[in-house]
């Protein structure tokens, strides 16, 4: 499976999100992921990468690596890595949906959105590396 894997490494910054997004999008198109799902894939990539850009390396800077592998027709497996502080985004508390407008915050919404749009998601820490992997598209697509 690794022979088909494609990788891209860029600075972990908000400015890199578009290039990472386009990279994975090209893999999704080649894997025949339905066109209607491509913006959902953009959204998943943005939410994960923006979190890495903002929090992984504080107060320093570093890189993120994106890898994808086609997983049969219409399906893609994606891994996003950083070498920053150990952090499992899947352990973040879910948003508190009971709060009204005045008290509502968006804390946790990004991860919640990601979970809603993928078919599977997992986090692992390997040596000094955070690896978040997911399958796409999700069940609602």
């Amino acid at each position, binding site marked *: 499976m690794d022979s088909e894997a494609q990788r891209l490494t860029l600075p972990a910054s908000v400015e890199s*999100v*578009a290039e990472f997004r386009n990279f994975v999008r090209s893999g999704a198109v080649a894997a025949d992921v339905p066109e209607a799902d491509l913006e959902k894939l953009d*959204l998943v990539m*943005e*939410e994960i990468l923006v979190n890495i850009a903002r929090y992984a390396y504080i107060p320093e800077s570093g890189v993120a690596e994106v890898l994808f592998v086609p997983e049969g027709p219409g399906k893609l497996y994606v891994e996003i890595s950083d070498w920053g502080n150990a952090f499992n985004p899947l352990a973040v508390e879910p948003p508190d*949906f009971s709060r009204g407008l005045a008290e509502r915050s*968006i804390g946790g919404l990004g991860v919640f*959105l990601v979970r809603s749009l993928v078919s599977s998601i997992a986090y692992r820490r390997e040596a000094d590396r955070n690896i978040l992997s997911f399958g796409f598209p999700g069940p609602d697509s």
Partner: protein
Amino acid sequence: MNIETSDLEKAILLKVSGRMDAENAHEFEQACEPWIARGAKHLIADLDGLQYVSSMGLRSFLAVAQKLQSSSGSLILCRLNGLPRQVFELTRLIGLFPIFDSAQEALATL
């Protein structure tokens, strides 16, 4: 993302189109702030041309709505469709905003 603003007297209309993401979501707040500072109570965001919104965009909508609510005003959304609507639904923000099918319908309630 493109934002066209017009003053409808009872409310300010902001036509938002394109993609609202981490790089540009702050532009929506920036477009609203001068009107709020001048005392506008109600802002209507026409989202017919909005193709994409991420959680950073949601943060922007929420921040503007909270500011307006604290001065007894509101941020009204209209023509929320497609993926942006799905994002509002998934994050259960949909019930926190007044939502209408058109700006005219929204205006009629003010």
